[in-house]
């Protein structure tokens, strides 16, 4: 839908209508982040003219065109103009024109049409809004920064599925099931969708799940405790054009009364027209002002950076320098001898490379998955066989990348290898002394450091930095440029715009701002290249000086680095001349091929032959694994009607494999089971207290169990977390950027109220037990400490009289007893001496619990040593034992036959009094302590679990890393949120294990 211009009456009719009126027409112009809408209305508020256009890169140019169209329809008569929309703000201010904020315009428009609207949901290209009408009291909300870019997100997802917005809607209509897709933001959602695509999930289901993610995001981010019910209006482009998105909203919110205006896409412009009060102007006068604005902003763009190349000579030298790292190609038709195949089934692209005995390229292939990697590999293989001469014998074929197992099973390859190992193999080929390899692919970034021929540290991006590469590509496409052309534009840029580097959602917003400031596409392209590089350097690698920390023998690779602008930006920012192999995008496949050659057994590969490929038949089915409570959503790939390959499973059970290492100790599973026992199943007493099993309750529940048991009160826990429980509480979450463990609290409280309990007990606890005397303090994090306040303030649809949230510390018996005495006096009159007794028993039970965990921790340590198994200290917080929070990662590690320890099970074995930060949070003190234990045990490594949004871990992760590196140990971090990309976690852990040795 490039442009839709609609004249509701013909010119004569309009002139006719105008004839008898002196009152000028009113024009509403809505300039959103991706589109411009114009509506003209007459005295009776009747719409005479409307148009809708995507403004692509230039707001002012598109606006000019729209106004000229309008002029040819309506002529020179003066009209009242009113602007609205996020991108119109600056323009209108600069022109000194009337401006009405878009939510106000929407409200105005709605009020005009219908009186009894309760809620309005408007989704735009960049912002999402909800308006609650409650008599005269109107509450308007807009999404937070993280949740930006709804419309832009739909476009990107559509292009990921190889279609457009309309196609996505058509696909979604045919869905049969929904997947859980992260709803925190577009980047997280994409991180979930990629692996689904790679696993071969149905596009129809993915399309509908994308819409569901938007629904969840809108509700979790914007309802904030207010119920969306009654008569609901849908506004904005996405909701107007996508019937399936509306359907998802209607189904999920169980709506019965919905208002969809006839021209929802221009509705806000209509509202603005209603509000137009400015002195009448002719279109020519307005056009003149727009031109002035354009000129003015061209000169005053503030956030610009130096160009990528100062001169053409510089550019030519750069091109010449990078021509060096090439791999020879020889014709495959005439080659006689052994050949080795590498297939890299990456997140967005599939790469194939066939090499000769002398490492020359016989055949190479690079293509987008287009949502179906299996199909792509099949086509590539057929094509490959056609190009090969008689004398070529494929001896061995290896796969790597996200889809390595799927491809290996589907096409009968001889082996597979973790991608980092493949990349190192390939990098060595170009530079045997390589000290650092950085790979930026479409979705992921990986880098690793090499010391003495061994990979010593692997850094993979976490979700926030995902998708930078493919973002540039889809963005270029949305502007109508192929990526090569877009990269070339960056090189010509004179003043790159600074677009920030937090993530692609933020970058997208910044691009919109730059566009509304009339920045050129060239400058935006160069700015994006810089942003991607800065994201890699400062967020992923976390290096302030790459040369000093990683040496100067750097090899860059991955599809994204084929963009010269990005390569240049990287060299400029680091001040190092790097090597970029000519096959930068094929390095994984090249490495796999080299490894295939290394491991070949002098016999033909089992790889499917041409005729087998011709008959190749492939289907997918979906199932849910019910072997445990993780309820993995499985994708069953069926090849040739009988061979099955299952993906989506966390452990071997889901794949139908018999388990052989049940008895390998896993502290996370042990602890979780233990915690679950602190409950009175049979309720022997008269009164019952409900404890939400959230946050620090995972640490303190033994105390509370014994405490209440002594007072003869049943303890009932809220139960196990799951997605469903989360969704039940999501509409009362006030802050969308808070961590997932905190968001889960809402669901647990809802669950507790449904259990037959007398009161809920959830104390505010700013302090913990004093555990180590050298710590500066023993705080809880702000969210852990005071979340009960948030519950009380936001869940008032529940009976808050039964919700007890005292302020307590367990360090001082007397104060504790006094507070509890006062608190419980109505519901549970108890003497102080009884409370004292209960307190003592609580403390005893707490320490007994800790002792038990510690004993098991020591046993696990010992077990790892005597059985010579790798051990991983999965260091996080007490609440990370919740499988809904850790996403079954402990189980996944166990399936790799590794002992899993938790930080609180072994921190008593070591003291780390000297740290470089203020050591004031008890749970973090444990992290610092265990970091210093790692070096004492061979085959042990630390993996830190970090919840997204945990502000404190910005401090702890750096310090834990420093402590480990001091002892020459590896640091690995896994970021988790509502949903975690287990594919990436798997790659990360396997890469880590491959560097650890052990059995």
């Amino acid at each position, binding site marked *: 839908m490039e442009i839709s211009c609609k004249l509701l009456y013909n010119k004569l009719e309009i002139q006719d209508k105008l004839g008898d009126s002196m009152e000028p027409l009113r024009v509403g112009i809505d300039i959103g982040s991706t589109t411009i809408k114009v509506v003209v209305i007459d005295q009776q508020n009747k719409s005479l003219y409307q148009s809708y256009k995507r403004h692509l890169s230039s707001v002012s140019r598109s606006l000019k065109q729209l106004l000229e169209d309008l002029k040819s329809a309506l002529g020179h008569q003066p009209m009242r103009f009113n602007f609205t929309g*996020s991108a119109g*703000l*600056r323009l209108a201010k600069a022109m000194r024109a009337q*401006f*009405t904020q*878009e939510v*106000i315009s929407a409200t105005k428009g709605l009020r005009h049409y219908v009186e009894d609207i309760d809620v309005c949901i408007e989704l735009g290209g*960049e*912002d999402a809004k909800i308006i609650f009408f409650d008599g005269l009291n109107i509450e308007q909300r*807009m999404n*937070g*920064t*993280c949740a930006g870019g709804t419309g832009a997100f739909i476009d990107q997802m559509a292009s990921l599925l190889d279609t457009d917005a309309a196609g996505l809607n058509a696909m979604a209509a045919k869905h049969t099931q929904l997947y859980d897709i992260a709803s925190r933001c577009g980047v997280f959602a994409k991180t979930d969708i990629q692996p689904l695509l790679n696993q071969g999930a149905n596009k129809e289901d993915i399309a509908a799940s994308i819409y569901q993610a938007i629904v969840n995001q809108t509700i979790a981010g914007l309802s904030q405790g207010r119920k969306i019910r009654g008569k609901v209006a849908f506004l904005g482009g996405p909701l107007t054009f996508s019937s399936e998105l509306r359907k998802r909203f209607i189904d999920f919110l169980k709506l019965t009364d919905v208002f969809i205006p006839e021209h929802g896409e221009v509705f806000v412009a209509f509202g603005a027209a209603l509000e137009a009060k400015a002195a009448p102007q002719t279109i020519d006068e307005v056009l003149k002002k727009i031109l002035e604005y354009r000129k003015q902003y061209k000169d005053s763009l*503030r*956030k610009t950076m130096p160009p990528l190349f100062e001169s053409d000579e510089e550019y030519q030298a750069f091109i010449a320098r990078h021509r060096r790292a090439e791999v020879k190609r020889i014709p495959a038709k005439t080659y006689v001898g052994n050949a080795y195949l590498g297939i890299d089934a990456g997140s967005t692209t599939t790469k194939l490379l066939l090499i000769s005995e002398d490492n020359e390229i016989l055949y190479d292939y690079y293509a987008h998955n287009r949502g179906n990697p299996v199909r792509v590999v099949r086509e590539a293989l057929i094509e490959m066989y056609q190009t090969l001469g008689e004398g070529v014998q494929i001896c061995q074929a290896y796969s790597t990348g996200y889809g390595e197992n799927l491809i290996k099973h589907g096409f009968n390859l001889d082996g597979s290898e973790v991608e980092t190992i493949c990349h190192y193999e390939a990098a060595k080929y170009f530079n045997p002394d390589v000290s650092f390899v950085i790979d930026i692919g479409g979705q992921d970034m990986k880098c690793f450091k090499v010391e003495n021929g061994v990979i010593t540290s692997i850094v993979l991006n976490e979700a926030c930095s995902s998708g930078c590469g493919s973002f540039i590509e889809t963005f270029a496409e949305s502007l109508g440029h192929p990526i090569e052309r877009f990269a070339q534009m960056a090189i010509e840029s004179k003043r790159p715009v600074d677009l*920030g*580097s*937090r*993530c692609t959602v*933020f970058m997208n*917003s*910044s691009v*919109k701002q730059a566009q*509304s400031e009339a920045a050129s596409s060239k400058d935006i392209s160069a700015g994006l290249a810089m942003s991607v590089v*800065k994201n890699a350097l*400062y*967020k992923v690698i976390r290096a*302030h000086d790459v040369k000093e920390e990683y040496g100067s023998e750097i090899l860059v690779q991955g599809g994204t680095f084929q963009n010269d602008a990005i390569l240049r930006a990287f060299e400029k920012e680091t001040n190092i001349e790097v090597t970029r192999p000519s096959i930068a995008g094929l390095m994984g496949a090249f490495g796999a091929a080299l490894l295939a050659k290394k491991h070949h057994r002098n016999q033909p590969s089992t790889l499917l032959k041409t005729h087998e490929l011709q008959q190749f038949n492939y289907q997918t089915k979906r199932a849910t694994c019910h072997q445990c409570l993780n309820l993995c959503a499985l994708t069953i790939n069926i090849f040739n009607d009988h061979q099955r390959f299952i993906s989506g499973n966390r452990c071997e059970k889901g794949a139908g494999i018999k388990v052989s290492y049940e008895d390998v100790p896993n502290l996370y599973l042990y602890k979780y089971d233990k915690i679950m026992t602190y409950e009175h199943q049979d309720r022997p007493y008269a009164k019952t207290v409900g404890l939400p099993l959230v946050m620090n309750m995972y640490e303190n529940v033994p105390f509370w169990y014994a405490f209440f048991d002594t007072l003869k009160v049943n303890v009932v826990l809220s139960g196990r977390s799951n997605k469903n429980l989360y969704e039940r509480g999501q509409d009362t979450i*006030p*802050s969308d*950027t808070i961590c997932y463990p905190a968001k889960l609290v809402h669901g647990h409280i809802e669950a507790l109220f449904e259990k037959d309990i007398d009161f809920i007990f959830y104390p*505010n606890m*700013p*302090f913990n037990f004093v555990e180590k005397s050298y710590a500066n*303090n023993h*705080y809880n994090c*702000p*969210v852990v400490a005071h*979340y009960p*306040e*948030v519950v009380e*303030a*936001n869940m*008032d649809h529940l009976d808050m009289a039964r919700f007890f949230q005292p*302020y307590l*510390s367990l*360090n*001082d018996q007397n*104060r504790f007893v006094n507070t509890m005495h006062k608190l419980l006096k109505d519901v549970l009159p108890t003497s102080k001496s009884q409370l004292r007794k209960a307190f003592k028993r609580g403390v005893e039970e707490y320490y007994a619990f800790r002792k038990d965990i510690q004993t098991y921790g020591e046993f696990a340590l010992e077990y790892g040593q005597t059985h010579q198994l790798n051990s991983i200290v999965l260091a996080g917080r007490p609440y990370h034992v919740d499988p809904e929070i850790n996403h079954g990662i402990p189980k996944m590690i166990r399936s790799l036959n590794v002992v899993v320890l938790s930080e609180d099970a072994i921190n008593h074995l070591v003291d780390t009094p*000297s740290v*470089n*930060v*203020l050591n004031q949070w008890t749970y973090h003190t444990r992290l610092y302590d265990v970091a210093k234990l790692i070096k004492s045990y061979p085959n042990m490594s630390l993996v830190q679990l970090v919840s997204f*949004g945990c*502000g*404190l871990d*910005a*401090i702890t*992760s*750096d310090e834990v890393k420093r402590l480990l590196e001091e002892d020459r140990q590896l640091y690995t971090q896994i970021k988790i949120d509502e949903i975690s990309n287990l594919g990436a976690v798997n790659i990360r852990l396997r890469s880590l294990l491959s560097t650890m040795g052990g059995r």
Partner: protein
Amino acid sequence: MAELVYHDNRLLFTEEMRQEYTILVPQMAPYHFTYFVDAFTSEGYKAELLTTDDYELIHEGMKYSHNDICVPAMLVIGQFIDAIKKQGLNAKKVALVITQTGGGCRASNYIALLRKALEKAGYSEVPVISLNAGGLEKNPGFRVTPRVLHKLHDAMLFGDLIMTLVNQTRPYEVNLGETNAVKADIDKALQGYFKHRRLFSWKRHKKMSQKIIERFSEISVDRSTPKPKVGIVGEIYVKYSPLGNNHLETTLEKEGCEVITPPLYDFFIYSFDSRAYDIKMYGGSKKEWLVLKLAIWYIEVRRQKLRKMLEKAHYAPGISYKKIRSLVDGIIDVGTHIGEGWLLTAEMIDLIHHGAPNIVCTQPFGCLPNHIAGKGMFKKLKKHYPESNIVAIDYDTSASKINQLNRINLMVSNAFRQLEEKNHERKV
């Protein structure tokens, strides 16, 4: 050359350095920090306030700090490193000062982050001084003597006073620029004020304050068209620092609003009070408790006098700490004192009570305490005060300004609508 002395691996600021070094002070609250620097200079320190506002400094911050850390840390670190690199300062002759609040918020760790950043940037020989009330770190060359303390106290009072006066005058001034000119005059006069040798001179302070109020009263104003009042609350750095909040005060005034920024002193009193609260609730030294309570009492006596003076001159004087503390009864417990804690909620209620239900709640992206006392309380406030018109703005080095402006614009539009309705009611 001053010798580098270490204690527990920490580089100390020595007596010798006091003579030779320039202490760089990050700009946090423009109304107050100018006078803090004046106070220190008058005591023989060489101190310089960093007023750089160039967005380039953000890059230095990003380069040398963890990118998930909150924006105040990134900006302060960026401002320091940028200053050392670009302003031609001799890195061997400067020290940095940073406030350290203590408490469960990560802000207590800024100083550690700053040291790490300096080390990475190759400035490990630059001493970092902690300015704190809790005795967290001590330096032989930087002692907060009773006199320094009292000067800081005066500076704080002047800062709050002048901020109040400017905010209530500038939107209505007849001759554009007059308010700023008056403020510049007063700033100059205050430099002289701090040079005075005498210690506790309440009379002098009172006279100076009176003079300041008079000078502002002389500015010709036109208050016939009421302007919507908009309050700024939030995390302490982005609330006051124009660098942190993209010049929010100016933006709002340009939109035609009168800005109310609650006094900075409240935050400090709140910090003392929080410490006292913890001692009482969870244990600690009784003596410390008494000292804290006495300090609060003393400060409040002095502030009460100023409030009286303001009231007499027909300015909105603000309310006492005790009163503001009582506002959160039944809303949030005063035990919530991590970061800005309950004070943030209380300030919003105070603003609503005083005709400013229009509020920008500022926070760094991902600010932990604001999840609780800021965004976490909006719903409850809306319930108690349906007229509340609060917008939460996240500040981040990567956030797009237009998004912030658009949200502020929505809040301002509603403020104008509410004002119109009120005027209409009055006429009827």
